[in-house]
């Protein structure tokens, strides 16, 4: 799902890093948003709603709409459409509101 050739744009890509999403290991580029790396790996369902358990994906991709909230390194409700990817990140799908650890 990565664009290989583009008539106008060249994409600056950071170093390749690995991270996990729901326990599965994926790779992406350091510094790109987590959701972009997931999307490039074909993962588009990013969570389920707390009441009706409907699937959720990103909608705005610029941190406006909160459709993409996930738990990152134990921290819930991270907007993964803007959160930069780093090596070894542990990302888990959030079903519902998420829990803040004490």
């Amino acid at each position, binding site marked *: 799902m990565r*664009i290989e050739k583009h008539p106008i744009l060249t994409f600056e890509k950071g170093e390749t890093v690995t991270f996990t999403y729901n326990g599965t290991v994926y790779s992406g580029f350091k510094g*790109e948003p987590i959701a972009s790396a997931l999307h490039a790996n074909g993962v588009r369902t990013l969570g389920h709603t707390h009441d009706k358990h409907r699937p959720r*994906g990103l*909608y705005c991709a610029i941190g406006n709409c909160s459709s993409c909230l996930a738990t990152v390194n134990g921290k819930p409700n991270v907007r993964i459409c803007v959160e930069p990817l780093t090596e070894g990140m542990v990302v888990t799908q959030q079903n519902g509101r998420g829990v803040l650890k004490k």
Partner: protein
Amino acid sequence: MIKTDVAVIGGGPAGMCAAIEAANAGAKVIVFERSRNLGGQLVKQTHMFFGSQKQYASKRGFDISKILRDQISQNKNITVMTDATVIGMYEDGVLTIEHDNKYKKVLPRATVVATGASEKFLPFNNNDLPGIYGAGAVQTLMNVYGVKPGDQVVMVGAGNIGLIVSYQLMQAGVKVNAVIDAAPRIGGYLVHASKIRRMGVPILTSTTVKTAHGTECVEGVTLVKLDENWKEIPDSEFYLPCDNLCIAVGLSPLTELMWQIGIEMAYVPQLGGYVPKSNKNMQTSRPEVFVAGDASGVEEASSAMVEGRIAGLNAAKFLGYYTTDTDSKLADYFEQADSLRSGPVGEKIRAGLKLAELD
């Protein structure tokens, strides 16, 4: 408490231009940008801009963003705070921000609100399925991060954004199955429409989305034709496959901060919803608060930049930073704004701005 002459909220085209003008007039400026970089939505605009030379015509959006960023980084009067989200605006003039996971306070003497806009949505069955993205999100994924939003797209909205993004999708190697619009006519410039039609993409007017299909992700969409009263025509439903339904149905100004301090607002559909009332100097009902760009009414980036320049110059002037060329610059910017909104294309905007005029 952080103190400054002018706080600019938002580092997109309007905010960057406001900062440059206020700083050049002599004011100390801090730009607060919630994302990691300045540029706002310019960074994903790959098309060449219209307008005149002064508005960077025939340059691409991301190149304009670079030009403005360079000017800002070389300007000693401007401090840029990125990852800084302004979350509160108080009646005593204090702004509260979240920066580096910390809560901070700022006391500016004048403020330029250049917060931009957010994408509108459309009601239809299953409109919350993953794979249904705003047109801005599609541009961000493919033009900033080089990721395809899908393999085949149905574009909802034949305004300029819908048409331009359809073309950009094809540049990125994505198939566009159709562009649809509920209106009976194509809303965008015909030059954009004919470009994508020549590439074989049908543009279906008087057509809207009835239902999206899919379980975990969108897999297709049922569309329906509308009659002249925008009512569904019975038995006119048809199906198109898509793994990305792109919604380009306009934007709403981000005005939350201005509501917080009771700035006078007006509901102006032509400008995207509620907008602050302002005079031609981009000054709101709070004399120390100025507004620019989509936050003052949704237009496009060229007029956002001109508005930013007007707001920045006036914010500086309000604080006594008045130089020999302030008035001639302002006259030039007013003329540029008028010219961008001239002709039949600007009719809607002109009508909208009239309704948003501060008495």
